[in-house]
Structure formats: structure tokens, C-alpha cells
């Protein structure tokens, strides 16, 4: 099957091509789901793009799309489901919800925005099989999941016993393989575990009440593990003290703790709070952005807050237990999970007239605009925690259009307006930078060499947008989306459903750990290790995963 997209302005930062700036148009040719060099052979299908902007399909490296906590969110957010019923073009009665959409709605809404790959950033090992079953029911998207480690009792016991790094590496490798994960996420390093022993807060250098291990030790050990196992994505860190004013110091110390090794700080906005001013809540975006700029080993995503009703779902039960006091509506779910991790689900409404919420909004934008390298910052709302992913077009306009941004700011809480430097920031993102943030850079930080670009050999996941000075309008209605070369969205509407794949990473590790794991599961967890492990055939209705084989790296 040969498909030709004719006459598009190709925006492909990974290959240094910017048809938007040059005005040059060219064709893109697809053969059997992959992009190939142009030929003069007859195509089975041709699409005239008429000078529209052509980019690789969007990649979201941090969006909560599957797993038990999302079902708990759905359970708590029945009003959200009712308020956002099925939309036309869904092909079934499965679509609905905004803050906590169904699997089907997730796949359809993302595709409509030009996204074709999304990673679930907090898969708990005990719940991994369920998360994979759920991901298989998300149409149109390739997916993958980061395994939550760093609060698991097996690991903390290893650290407390002073185990050799090789043993830790073997354990991490075993867990990645067993749960069919793509990367390692740390959520509140050691803090979720400490909460099980009734600690309510954990600082970076505070000892776990049971194991005596510090979050710093958890972090540095796991950074070494993923480096030495050769996992493509660095440790994906949700740091200590999420949402706590004064967590700026923790964040700065965390960046320094990486000591030059690669580290990804996720939803940085929630970790950039100072304590200045009469309300003891202030922006530390400038200080943090400065340190991020100075440390090329650090990458971040923002977790932008967008106003309106949403639901926050996190493995960080310690923080979410604190947040349940401000739940809106006033209900929440928490759960300690299987010597493994935990979860906390708290509905929340971000209000533009609230000082704190308005400043959170401003802090997120400050981070976007002050972090200089677009290859090291990613566009996220931490869906649904800062806001649903469907707000991305609005967020893109906020980044690209200073007048629009300042006009929005002028409508917010007055005191918050005085506490942000946003009006002084003149930067406006270019289309090329947006393409980097949402395609090229995530592919690079995830090690997906055949995604995020439009060169020969790339997967033919392609988004076509008609240029519009109103960038929100431009990104709200995608003219065409191709998944593996097949047209799935036309003029903003899903026209066909595609079955995606799930990306997993496969490191090599010392399999002698298997005996220890069997004993651990038998004696402590109370189920068999062999049943914890997920077979390839359990993914994607038997199709199995797309495997990225890891090359062992140097410690």
C-alpha cells in the first residue's frame, strides 16, 4: 500500500526541516505504514494538502490514561461522564467523560488533536496487567507505561541491607520485564512507603521511619540502575513534597542530587512553589528554570494547570491524603497497594479567581517560557491532574501568543497577577518549537528513533494542520491524522479506528534474582511470581508489545 501526501509544508525539527519558515512544499510518501523516500511510482491513495502544515503525530510522554486509579477517578466523576456524553463519530456507545474519559474517548480525542502516541506515567506493578488490558482498549494510540518503583518494600529492603548495585539492577530489570513497562517512574521517593508507617511528610534527606533509607538514596540508586540497564528514558521523577509551598528548595536540591546524570522531572509546576509574600505562596519558576537551563542532564514536563473541573489521580497517597481536605466535590479515594505503591484520587476544581490556582497557572507558563531549550521541556497538563489533555490547543495558544496570554492573565485573581513575572516575559513559542515540544523532543527522550519525525523509516503517524493565526483554532481541528499510514481523522473528526501497539523496554539482567523474587512473592506478597509476570501474548489482545531492546550502559 503506497500513499502520497501532496504539497504540504513539512515541519520536521528532528531532521532540520521547516517548511513553515521557508514556504517550501513537498510530498510525503508512505509505504506499508512507514515513511519512505519519494518515488515516482503510482500511489494507491493520494491526499492533496494544499500547503497545510505537516508534522509527525504528537507524542505525550506523561498522561494518566490507564490503570486502576483512572477507574477510581471515573467512579468518583460520574457527573463528568454524564456532562460529556458520547460524541458523533465514536462508532459505539463507549465514548464519554472529559476529566476521566473512557478508553475509547481517550483514543478518539487524542487522535483528533493530532496525537498518536501516549505514555501512562504511573503503572503500579500489582496493577500492571489491568493497565495493559485497559490500554488495549484505547483506539488510535500507541501506548506504553512507566513502572512506579522506589516505594516498593523489596527495593527498600535491598537498600536498607546495603545490597550491591548489581542486585538492584537485576531487580529493576526483572520488574520492567515482568510488568511489560517502558521506563521507571519514581513517585515521592520512599514517601508513599513512609506513609504506610504513618509518616506524613518526607524531605529529600529524611530517613524512612522503617528502613532508614532517604529519598536521595532511592533516587540516586534508581538513576544508576536505569543508566546501567541502558533504559532509553531517564528516571521519570515526581519529587518529594508535591504541592507544598517551599518545595522549591527540594526541587533545586533534587536537580543537584542527580550529579550530572540524566533525570526527568515531571509536572515541575507542582514542585516550584516558594513561601514569599503575605500568603506564603509564591512562584519559584525563575530560580528553578535557571538551574534547569544550567544542567543539560535535566529534562522536565510542566503539568500546566488549566481552569475548570478535573480529578487528580496519583500514586502519591501521602500527598493526596493531604489534598483530600480541598477535594471538590468533597470525596476522595486512597489506597495502600500490595507492598508496591499506593494511589490517591481527589476531584478538584481549579478556579481562576483563586489566588493559589491562578498563581499555579502563571507558574506553569513561567516555566514554559523561562526554560530555554525546547528539547528539554515537554507540553503536559499531567492529564487529568492539572487539567484534561483536551485543553492542549488552548495551552499552545497561551505559549504562542503573548497578547492572548496577557489578556487571560488580566482576568485572573488580582493578587496572583501581582505575584507573577508573566507580563514581563516577551517570549512567544514558534510553530517549530511547538513541534519540538510535542513530537521531536519526546521521541528523543523516550529513545523512539522511528517516531517524532518524518524522515524515511519513520512510522507514518502524521498530523496535518491548516495554518491559522488563532493557534487554538489551528490545533483544535486537525485536518488529517494518519496512523501507520491510514487516515483516521479528517477535518477534526475520527473517520476510522486504528489498533495501536504498546511500547516496552527489554533490558538484560542477571536472572539469578528470579529465586529471590519467587520467595518474596510466596512469603510476603502472597501470590506466585509466575502470576505477577505478564506474558507478551497478554498485551494488545494477543498481538504482543513492540519491544525496544536495551544496550547496557556504563555506570
Amino acid at each position: 500500500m503506497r500513499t502520497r501526501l501532496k504539497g504540504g509544508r513539512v515541519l520536521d525539527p528532528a531532521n532540520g526541516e521547516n517548511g513553515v519558515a521557508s514556504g517550501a512544499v513537498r510530498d510525503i510518501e508512505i509505504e506499508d505504514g512507514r515513511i519512505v523516500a519519494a518515488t515516482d511510482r503510482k500511489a494507491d491513495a493520494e491526499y492533496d494538502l494544499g500547503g497545510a502544515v505537516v508534522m509527525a503525530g504528537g507524542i505525550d510522554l506523561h498522561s494518566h490514561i490507564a490503570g486502576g486509579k483512572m477507574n477510581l477517578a471515573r467512579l468518583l466523576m460520574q457527573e463528568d461522564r454524564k456532562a460529556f456524553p458520547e460524541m458523533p463519530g465514536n462508532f459505539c456507545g463507549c465514548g464519554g467523560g472529559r476529566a476521566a474519559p473512557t478508553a475509547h474517548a481517550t483514543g478518539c480525542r487524542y487522535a483528533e488533536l493530532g496525537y498518536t502516541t501516549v505514555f501512562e506515567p504511573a503503572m503500579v506493578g500489582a496493577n500492571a496487567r489491568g493497565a495493559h488490558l485497559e490500554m488495549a482498549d484505547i483506539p488510535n494510540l500507541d501506548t506504553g507505561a512507566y513502572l512506579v518503583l522506589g516505594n516498593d518494600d523489596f527495593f527498600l529492603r535491598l537498600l536498607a541491607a546495603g545490597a550491591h548495585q548489581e542486585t538492584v539492577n537485576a531487580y529493576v530489570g526483572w520488574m520492567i520485564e515482568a510488568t511489560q513497562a517502558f521506563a521507571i517512574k519514581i513517585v515521592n521517593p520512599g514517601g508513599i512507603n513512609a506513609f504506610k508507617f504513618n509518616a506524613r511528610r518526607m524531605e529529600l534527606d529524611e530517613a524512612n521511619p522503617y528502613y532508614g533509607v532517604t529519598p536521595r538514596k532511592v533516587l540516586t540508586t534508581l538513576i544508576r540502575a536505569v543508566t546501567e540497564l541502558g533504559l532509553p528514558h531517564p528516571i521519570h521523577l515526581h519529587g518529594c513534597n508535591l504541592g507544598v509551598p517551599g518545595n522549591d528548595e527540594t526541587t533545586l536540591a533534587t536537580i543537584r542530587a542527580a550529579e550530572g546524570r540524566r533525570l526527568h522531572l515531571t509536572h515541575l509546576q507542582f514542585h516550584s512553589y516558594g513561601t514569599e509574600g503575605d500568603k506564603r505562596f509564591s512562584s519559584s519558576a525563575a530560580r528553578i528554570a535557571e538551574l534547569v537551563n544550567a544542567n543539560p542532564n535535566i529534562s522536565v514536563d510542566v503539568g500546566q494547570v488549566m481552569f475548570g473541573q478535573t480529578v487528580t489521580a496519583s500514586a502519591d497517597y501521602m500527598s493526596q491524603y493531604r489534598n483530600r481536605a480541598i477535594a471538590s466535590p468533597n470525596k476522595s479515594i486512597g489506597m495502600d497497594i500490595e507492598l508496591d505503591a499506593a494511589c490517591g484520587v481527589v476531584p478538584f476544581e481549579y478556579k481562576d479567581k483563586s489566588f493559589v490556582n491562578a498563581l499555579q497557572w502563571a507558574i506553569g507558563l513561567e516555566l514554559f517560557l523561562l526554560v530555554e531549550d525546547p528539547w528539554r521541556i515537554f507540553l503536559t497538563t499531567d492529564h487529568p491532574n492539572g487539567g484534561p489533555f483536551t485543553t492542549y490547543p488552548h495551552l499552545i495558544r497561551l505559549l504562542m501568543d503573548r497578547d492572548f496570554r496577557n489578556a487571560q492573565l488580566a482576568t485572573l485573581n488580582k493578587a496572583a497577577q501581582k505575584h507573577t513575572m508573566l507580563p514581563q516575559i516577551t517570549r512567544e513559542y514558534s510553530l517549530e518549537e511547538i513541534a519540538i515540544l510535542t513530537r521531536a523532543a519526546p521521541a528523543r527522550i523516550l529513545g523512539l528513533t522511528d517516531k517524532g519525525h518524518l524522515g524515511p523509516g519513520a512510522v507514518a503517524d502524521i498530523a496535518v494542520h491548516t495554518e491559522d493565526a488563532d493557534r487554538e483554532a489551528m490545533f483544535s481541528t486537525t485536518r488529517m491524522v494518519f496512523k501507520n499510514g491510514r487516515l483516521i481523522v479528517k477535518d477534526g473528526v475520527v473517520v476510522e479506528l486504528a489498533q495501536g501497539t504498546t511500547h516496552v523496554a527489554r533490558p538484560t539482567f542477571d536472572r539469578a534474582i528470579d529465586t529471590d523474587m519467587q520467595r518474596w512473592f510466596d512469603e510476603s506478597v502472597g501470590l506466585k511470581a509466575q502470576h505477577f509476570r505478564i506474558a507478551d501474548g497478554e498485551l494488545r489482545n494477543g498481538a504482543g508489545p513492540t519491544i525496544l531492546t536495551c544496550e547496557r550502559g556504563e555506570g
Partner: protein
Amino acid sequence: MAEVRTIENVACGFCGLACDDLTVEVEGREVRAKAGPGGTVCPEAARLFRRLDTADAVARVAGEVTSQADAASEAHRLLTAATSPVIAGMGTDMTGAGALVDLAIRFGGVLDHHASMGLFRNYAAVQRTGWLASTLAEVRNHCDLLLVVGEDPTANWGRLFEKFYPATPLFATGERRVVFLGGTPGEKARRQLAGITLSELPGAPVEVLEALALLVSGRTPPQATIGGLPLAEVAALAEALRGSKYAVVTWNAAALDDGDLVAERATALVDALNVTTRAGVFPLGGTDNLMGVNQLMLWRLGYPLRTLVSGQGSAHDGTLYATEAALKDADVMVWVSAFRPEPPPSFTGKVIALAHPDTVFETEPDVVIPVGTPGIDHAGTVFRMDSIVSMPLGALRVATLPSVAEAVRRIAEG
């Protein structure tokens, strides 16, 4: 004589506890489950795993033996003509559940599971206030005080206390206490709880739980007796709960007439405890993959069980779309029970049964399609009662009956 094959570490998908250490002997078509090394086998698992070398049950239409294909096309015809089907029972694995949701999308219909009563009693609390919960491995290792509300759950979950109380817990290494509130541990529970400090409080659960929540918050109820118990006894338990490191409250809402109130009060008690110490609820339930089917409903439709799919949309109502209520307005019932020979509820409309081969029907259904059992005849996945852990079930013998998923696909194709 067929050779006896012995398979170890077999997982069980029946009661929701998801034991996975059974030893199973397979001899031709025969299947027998036994205790695995160092474990036990509960009577329910032994009974439900047992298969004899008998001829397979066959498909029937109006009581007449027919082929699977003809039964499927008759079911298709009935569903095509139906105006308001109910898909009930839903005792099936994850693939079967997905197929049933697809069936509802195709023909319309209400979806409910035969064991959803307890789930919705619990949801009375969850959806109003939420709750703070725990899972099996946490209870096993952290819990130093377990409050069991209502009757001894061992009758339904034969190995519950065996799973809760391993020989060497990681953290709860001091005294471990179990208090039965409004129930008495039976012989078997006592055996499994050897070495655990047991006590019984024969009080009315709802009143006692409510008073406990007050007491642990530092307030004193005005009454001298609480649910039939002297205040001092309830206060002593409150003190023990406050002093515990990790308390857990467990109950089976399905077996308690006021299960919704128990869930609500237990939730409030655990909320109160978590202010100063750690605690969690551990609601019991989850038979026949109830939790898995419910999980799938939530991610597929955005609603839990008791949801109507109609046209291009769906709607949820925990009362209106409960099986018994929904059947009052229905013209066709699709009854699905692959785990056990559970007969369908009585119904005057047309009945299509995707049934365990040993099912004894009070009234012959219009269509009977015998189906295999996940974990015996074919592989499948089921969820444990906590909705977090799921278990891969393997096939123990060559399948001669279709799975629910296969049977439903044939019906959909007609």
C-alpha cells in the same frame, strides 16, 4: 487409562480471593484440585474445579438438541427482535466481559453481574465520600488489628485468614488482634487464626461502628449502651484501634442487610483513624470476576455495572438497572455464568443462557449454549476482590466447549 498430569501453582478464579497455589490433577477429561505444597484447598475450589469424564452438554433451542451454530443464530434472531434486553449473570473472564459489552453496543441492553448487590451497597459510601482502602499484601504484613464486621467470612472465602496471616509478616511482628463484631469465628477460621489474639463483640455493627468513629475522634457518645454493648467495651476497642499501627476493617456487604450503612460507618471510622494513625477498609466480594467485569465497564463505558447501553450512548442507574428491576421491563435476558452452574432468575421473557454445563434450569431457556470455564477449559484473566491485582488463569484440558467470548461472537455474527 489416561495418564495423570499434575500441574502445580494453579490459579483459581472463583471466589475473588485469587489463590494461585493449588495443585491440580488432570486425567483425560477429569480434573481434581488439591492443596498445593504448604497450602490448603477450600471446598468451593475443590467442587468447582472438579470435572468428570462425561459427555459434554450440548446446545439446545426450545429444549431440542441442536448445533452451536443453530443455537447462536436463534440467539441472534431473538436479540435482533428484542426491544430491551438484559445481559445478566456476567460470570465470565475479561475477554468474555469485553464481548458482552460489544453485544450490548450491538443490540442494546442493560449490563449487570449476579453478585453486584454487595458492590453497590459499598458504592453507597464510595461514591458519596470515597474511602481509604488497603489490599491483601498490605493487610498481610501491616495489619495489627483487624475488625471483622458481620458473619465469619470463611464460608465464602475459605482461605481468607490463611492469606491474611502468614507465618512471618514483614512488619506486624508483635501481637496481632482480630475482633469479630456481630459475628463468631467458626472452627476453620479459628484454625487459620491460631496464634492471633481473638475476641468477639456481639453488638449491632452499624451502631458500634458509628460510636467507634466518634470515640477515636476523642468524642463520647451520650448512650450508656451501644448496639447492645456497654459503652466501656466499645470504648476499649476504640482505644485499641487508636493505639494500633495499621487497623483494617473488613465486611461482606452482600451478606449484611444494612451493608450500605456498614460500608458508610466503616469508611467514617477508617477516616477518623487515619488522622493519627494508619488504617484501611478491606471490603469483601468479587466472586466470579465481579470486580474485573466492573473494571472493564468503567474503562469501556465510563460507568460501573448496572448500565444501560442504548443507541449510541449509555446511562447508569444503580437501582433501575439492577438485574431484578431491569427484568421487569425487559423482553430478552442473556444469562451468562461460566464459573458455576448458577441458574438464571425467573423471567417471563425470552432467555438465552450461556451456561456452565452442569446448570439445572427451573424452566428450560429458549436457547442454551453450554460454555467452558475460564481456568479449566480455556485461559483467561480475572480480577481479585481488591480490583487491583488480576490473575492469569490457564487452560487445564483441551476445550470442547466455546468460551463466553467465542459464544458471544457467534451470536453477534448470527
